[in-house]
Structures are given as C-alpha cells and as structure tokens.
C-alpha cells in the first residue's frame, strides 16, 4: 500500500510542503490528485465539491496543474508549441489548422502576467534546465490552474536557479495560487513553506511549521534521529593515485564535453567535483572508467594507463565505481539482489570462473553484504527493481566497496536516496577514505560535495574553474558553478 488513509488540506495562497523520503508515497498521492492514479478509497474535494479525476484532463479542468520531476516536454518543439500541446488553439473546426499566432500570444501574456520570462520561439532542447522548468510552470498556468503541484522541482537546479524558483513560488502565492511542494530537501522547505506535512510509509506522521528545526523534520521523516552533517576527521593525503592531464572528451552528440581537465586525487583524500549537471562531470568520470573515448590527454592510476584499458580491467585493477544514473547504469532491475552484487565480478573467484557460476558463493556473498550494508530486502533472490531507491543504491555501494580498492569514484552517490541511507552511504565513503583509498566524488548537490570533500574542484563547461577548500563560502562556490570567477583567483587551494 503506497498511501494509507491520508488526509491533507491545501488552503488558497499557501505553499504546502509535502516532505518524505523516497518511496514514502508522496508521488503516489499527487498522481491521484492529478488523475494519473485512482484512489481505492477516500475522496478528493476541490472548493467544497467532491471530484473524481479519471485523467489529468479532469484534474486540469478542476484547476489542478502539475510539474513533474522529469519534464514532459518535446525537445524539438518550440516553447510555444510545447505549451500549446494538449490544448492546441485550432481554427476552422476540429480538423482545422493550428493557430500558432494565438498560442504564441497566450504564452507571452501568461509569462508577463506572472513574471516568468520565457522565449516562445526557442527550441526546448536548447534551453537550460531551469528555463525548461519555467516552461512547464507557464504551461500549467496557461491552463488557468489554482493549485500547482511541483514534484521535486529543485532536484535539477543550481543554487541560483533554486533561489529564482523560490521567488517565483512566492509571487504565485501572492497572486492567490496554491502550491504543493514535494521535496526531501529540508532547507528549501524551511525557506518557503507555509505548512509542512510529513509522510512516512504512506501515512501522515505529522504536520509542522516552518520554524521546526531541520533535525526535527529529518527525524519525523526517517522515524529516528539522524545526523545531517558528515562526520569526519581531517584527511591525511598520501601518494598521488589518480592523475588526469589535459583530458579532452566528447559527449554522445560529438560536442566537446570535457575540454582540457587536469586533476589529481591522492590516497586518503576525497576530491569533490561540484558543478551544475551537464558541465562535463559525467563524461569526465566515464572517460576515466573506460566507458567513453578519450580524445586527448592522459589518465593514470599509479603506473597504469587507464586510457588503454577496458572497463573490465579498470574495475579489476582496484577501482570502485558508482555511476550517476543508478537505474540506467548501476543495476539490472530484473536481476536479483545477489546477482547485482556480483555484476562486475561474476566470473572471478570465488563467485565463478570463465565458464560457470558458483550460485552458492553468489548467494553467500549476498547474505553477507545485505547484513553488512543494511540492505532492506525480502531475500537475496528479490529483484532489485522492487527495492526502494536507497536500497538499490546500497546494493551498488556494497558491490563496489566489497573488494580492495585503490580508487573509488562515486557519481551522485545519494541521488534519489532517502535521508537515512544518505547518512549511511556518506559514512561508508569516509570510511573508505580513511583506509587510504583515493576518492573522487561528483555531485550536483553542493551540500554533499562540501560535506564529503577535502578539496573541491568546480567544473563549468568542461573545464575546472577552480579548486577550493570546503570552507569556502557557499555563495562563492555557487557563483563558480554558474561560471562566474569574479575575485576568486583560479587554482586557489
């Protein structure tokens, strides 16, 4: 059961935050409100009137709009076309032609009325993520909705874009719109929400005011006290383990993504790479792992030349790797927990050889790792796809940390992971560092990079703009992430 008798009331003109871990049932609840799912029991009342939503069309007609976590935009359409999609202005009857001019005018009018600048003629694929999100919001607003549901809207934004979004939300509520803000980020909740409802395991476990402390909110969410800070001692860096020199890598479309990067990671330290998603971090890491062709430059692990090695050999020479997109690259969802735990070691002793697998050893390993990494699953034979995001990630972490490592690379190690598991994964990463492994952490969450890293490299448009200490003020790092170097001298340590 994803939702268990939930009561929630949203008043006009308020930002109502819906706080809960991944898998708590937030999205399920909102999908019912938006007509994507039908409740088995209970009802939805809009302006004192019980309503049944069979599809999003009904919900929109009742004045409810939704901006999904993954945008529902057609990349090759213009902004105006995307906004008109689903409610096209047509001239000359049902089989008439599209009235593009009127669609365009509607977009301009709405964007001016709510102070949300969008260019109606720009192609959506050319827009930065923050602007795409604005398009989604404008799209909802042109449908004359009174209640706007924002599903994890800040997950893809830079700190600056997040601030802009919060300002937009304030101005919308000032104009009488209501907003349901789904998130698991406590800072934002405290900054914007008028009321907070906390959901855990499909039930409302409490309501809170924005004055509630972050620790209390986190405890409500997880059901126990959690530490939000990464606890660690100062690093004791040793020899240089990973050396990247003049690395040049292209992305899938052949566009230069990494443009001459030099980096060094030493044993026993965490090098964090901060940056807004899409500034070359993904390609950088993939190139190091042998998953992407290196155009120029060198990548050395101690004395090994990684550029010439296959991914298999790199993994087996003592490199652990958590890919950024867990469900795409990290796990095989149809495979059992046990199989996923040996996904890159299945033909190595003790799990098997070049011909056959030793299922007993694979199962035994699974039991051990499940225990050690606190993976919540029914049994080692459970398909990984049925686990929560946090537990799936623990499977990946357990797999990659269960062999002697020289280098550990973690891309977005806690994306889509609940607060309780974040704490655990962070502590494992620090533990790995303290054992003398060189650690490279890539994250678009600045808090995470600052918390984990001993040094922070800020990437912007394929280059490392600066390497700074984690004590650097957030605003300064935020500006660097936006490509503004200002008074920060390059290469500051």
């Amino acid at each position, binding site marked *: 059961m*994803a939702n268990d008798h939930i009561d929630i009331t949203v008043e006009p003109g308020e930002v109502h935050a819906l706080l*809960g*871990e*991944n*898998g*708590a*049932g*937030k*999205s*399920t609840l909102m*999908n019912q409100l938006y007509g994507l*799912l039908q409740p088995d029991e209970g009802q939805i009342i809009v302006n004192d009137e019980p309503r049944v939503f069979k599809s999003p069309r009904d919900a929109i007609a009742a004045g409810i709009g939704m901006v999904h976590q993954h945008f529902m935009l057609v990349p090759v359409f213009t902004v105006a076309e995307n906004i008109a999609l689903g409610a096209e202005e047509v001239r000359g009857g049902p089989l008439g032609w599209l009235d593009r001019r009127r669609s365009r005018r509607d977009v301009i009018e709405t964007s001016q009325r709510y102070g949300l600048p969008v260019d109606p003629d720009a192609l959506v694929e050319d827009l930065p993520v923050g602007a795409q999100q604005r398009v989604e919001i404008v799209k909802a607003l042109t449908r004359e909705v009174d209640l706007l549901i924002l599903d994890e809207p800040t997950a893809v934004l830079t700190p600056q874009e997040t601030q802009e979004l919060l300002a937009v939300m304030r101005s919308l509520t000032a104009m009488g719109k209501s907003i349901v803000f789904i998130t698991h980020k406590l800072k934002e909740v405290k900054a914007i929400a008028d009321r907070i409802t906390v959901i855990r395991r499909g039930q409302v476990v409490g309501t809170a005011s924005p004055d509630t402390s972050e620790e209390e909110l986190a405890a409500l969410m997880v059901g126990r006290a959690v530490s939000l800070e990464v606890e660690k001692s100062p690093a004791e860096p040793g020899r240089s383990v990973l050396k990247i020199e003049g690395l040049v890598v292209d992305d899938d479309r052949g566009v230069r993504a990494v443009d001459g990067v030099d980096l060094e990671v030493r044993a026993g330290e965490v090098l964090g790479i901060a940056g807004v998603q899409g500034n070359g971090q993904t390609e950088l890491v993939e190139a190091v*792992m042998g*998953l992407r062709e290196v155009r120029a430059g060198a990548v050395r692990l101690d004395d090994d030349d990684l550029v010439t090695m*296959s*991914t*298999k*050999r*790199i*993994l*087996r020479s003592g490199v652990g*790797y958590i*890919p950024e997109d867990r469900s*795409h*690259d*990290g*796990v*095989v*969802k*149809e*495979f059992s927990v046990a*199989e996923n735990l040996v*996904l*890159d070691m*299945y*033909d190595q002793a003790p799990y*098997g*050889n*070049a*011909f*056959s*697998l030793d*299922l007993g050893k694979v199962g035994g390993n699974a039991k051990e790792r499940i225990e050690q990494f606190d993976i919540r699953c029914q049994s080692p034979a459970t398909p990984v796809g*049925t686990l*929560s*995001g946090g537990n799936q990630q623990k499977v990946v972490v357990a797999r990659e940390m269960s062999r002697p490592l020289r280098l550990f690379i973690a891309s977005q190690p806690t994306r889509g992971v609940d607060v309780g598991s974040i704490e655990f994964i962070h502590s494992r990463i620090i533990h790995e560092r303290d054992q003398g492994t060189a650690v490279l952490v890539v994250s678009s969450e600045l808090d995470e990079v600052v918390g984990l890293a001993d040094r922070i490299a800020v990437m912007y448009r394929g280059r490392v703009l600066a390497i700074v200490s984690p004590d650097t003020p957030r605003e300064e790092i935020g500006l660097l992430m936006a490509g503004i170097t200002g008074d920060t001298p390059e290469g500051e340590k």
Partner: protein
Amino acid sequence: MTAFLRKLWSANTVALTFLSMVLAVLIGALLIIVSDADVLAKFGYFTARPSDAIESSWAVVSTAYADLLKGAFGDPQVFSAWFAGTATWQQAFAPLSETLTYAAPMVFTGLSVALAFRGGLFNIGAQGQAVLGCVAAGIAGFTFGLPVVLNLLVALIAGVVGGALWGFIPGFLKARTGAHEVITTIMLNYSAGLFLSWLVIQQGIQAPGRTDAISKTVAETAQLPSPGGVLRVHLGIILAVLVTAGVSWLLNRSAFGFELRAVGANPHAAKTAGIGVGRTYVLLMAIAGGLAGLGGATQVLGTAHALTPAVAGNIGFDGLLVALLGRNRPWGTLFAALLFGALRAGGDRMQSFASISLELVTVLQALIVIFIAAPALVKAIFRLRAARATGLGASLAKG
C-alpha cells in the same frame, strides 16, 4: 525441475496459457461451425427447431476436436485393438510419434529465438539459420560417407556450424555497425531460402536422374536413428530434451548466461560493469544460429533425408511462436513446441478424417499466441485481477 514448476505456477502464467488455449479452442469451434454448410443451413430455421442446429453444431465440433486429440496423442480404439491383438503397438503409438516428429525441430528453433531474446536480440532469422543448418547437414550427410555414429555426428555438427555462421553475420553487423538484427536477419532469411532453391538443382547436389528440385539422399549412417515403419519419430526429440537442458544451464548457471541476461535486461549497466556488450551480441547470435541450424539438421537427417527447397518448412517462424508461448524459458519452449507439434499432428488427422482444413490448426496456433501476447485481454475476459493490483502498484509507487 521442482523449482521450475514452482516458478511457473507462482507467476500465474500456466493459468494464463491454459485460458488462452480454452479461448482459442472456443473460437476455433465457432469457425468449424460457420465453415460447415450443412450446420449453417440448420441455423436457418433456428427459431423453429433450435435443437437441430445445436445438436449438429455439437456433433461437428466434437468430432473435429476428437480427431485432433486422437491424431496428437492416440486413438483409444487402436489401443484396444492392440490389446486385443488386432493391431500393432506401432500403430497405437503412431500419433504420438507424429507429435514428437513435428515438435523436435521446433524445440531447437524455439530455443534459438528464446535464447537470443533473453540477450535482448529479436532473432527473426531462425528460419534462415535453420535453412543453412539443413544445407550443411544435408551436404555433409551425403558427401563424406564416414562410418556409423561418426557420420551422423559430423552431419549434426555441420548443421550447427552452418546455422551459427548465419547467426554470426547479424550479430557481428550489430556489434560493429549497430545494424538492427531484425532487418538483417529478415534479409538473411530470404538469402538462405533462395540459396537453397538454387543449390538443390546444381550438379553434384541434385539427385542423379531427377529433374525436380531434390538433392541426393543422406547416407543411412548419417540419418538420425528411428524405429521405422509408421513410427517416424527419431533421435532428434531426445537430442532436443538434452539441448534444452544445456540451454537452461547456459542461461542460468554459466558465466556467459549471466552476461547475456545482463546485456538483455540492461545493456548500459552491463557495459558499466565491464561486460563486453558487442562481444556478447556476436557470441549470442552465433549460438542462437547454431541452435536453429541444429533444428534444420534434425529435419534433414531425421525426417526428410534429402534437401528440397521447402525442406525447412516453416520451422524457423514456428520457433518465434514457440518461444513466445514458452515465455523465452528453455523448458517452457520445449513444452510449447510439444503443444504445437501435437496441434500439427492432430491437424493432419482432423483434415483427413473430419475434412477440416489444416489451416484451422494454424488459426488455433495463432489465436493461442495472440491471447498469450495480450494477457490483459485474457485477464479481462476471465476477470483475473490479482496480478494487476500488485504489478501496477509496485511500478507506480515511486515516492
């Protein structure tokens, strides 16, 4: 085996398969009724005397399906005659023998499709690979003249190699250039079929003294052993069971099986974990081709004993349906092939005894597969709801 049965039941697929067959049989009954002019005439005065129409419908349908069952599994009358001593045991088991004879090649082509599918490849090319298997096994069978056992072994291996070669090509093209295997295997099906038609009328291949398109006969030492007489069944069906066990091991216990399942389920994650996706595709298509080739070999060495343009029949395409019906699991595929074999054998008898076209069997096969492929439809018809609630709930309960 018990684990396999448990899995099959728990997934509720057996119930679904069974219900699909019931539906297909019901629709088949309707077709039998409407295609019989005498019965239809009785429906003309249905309101006056409904019993006439209903009785004659029942009679024609029950006779037809009784013949189908007798043709597939055996005629009780012949069995009693055997016990009474007026018929031989061979006659009693002839229907079952026909079922197994039809099933054997389909097991191999079905396994070929199923295995490729588990690795994320849609092997439409089982037909072409089977044809190449026929060609290679046939030529080896009438050329070398080796001693007993060895001759058969060499011919079988030749069939595997021929099919594997025809499977390797699309695998290699996909790994190297990204050419979609559906397109390339369809093209190779045509190439293989036309090659066979050309080959059988070439000198040295064509049977001496014949003007029609038929090759020399496979040496007796290269033929799959068979009881002979009315019993056409041959060693191929035992080979099929062994190969099914082998494929099952390959899929579930071997390192390569792990790789191909990982690649099939999520090629990106497989690549990230260091598995060579391209290498897996090539090897997998070669193995799948080899299986289909073996199917073609059993057809030539077990049943046909000579090459003709139609020697492979439709076994490659039947393999697609068999794999689908068997849900791409080795043992499931084996049972699906047996079912299709039974339908074919029964269909032969239904055609000659009840004068119902063999095409009805094709319709039944197609209907079963359609209902299997559209489980939602069957579930809706029989109001099965249990599976939906859990399945859908889990996929949407994201958070």
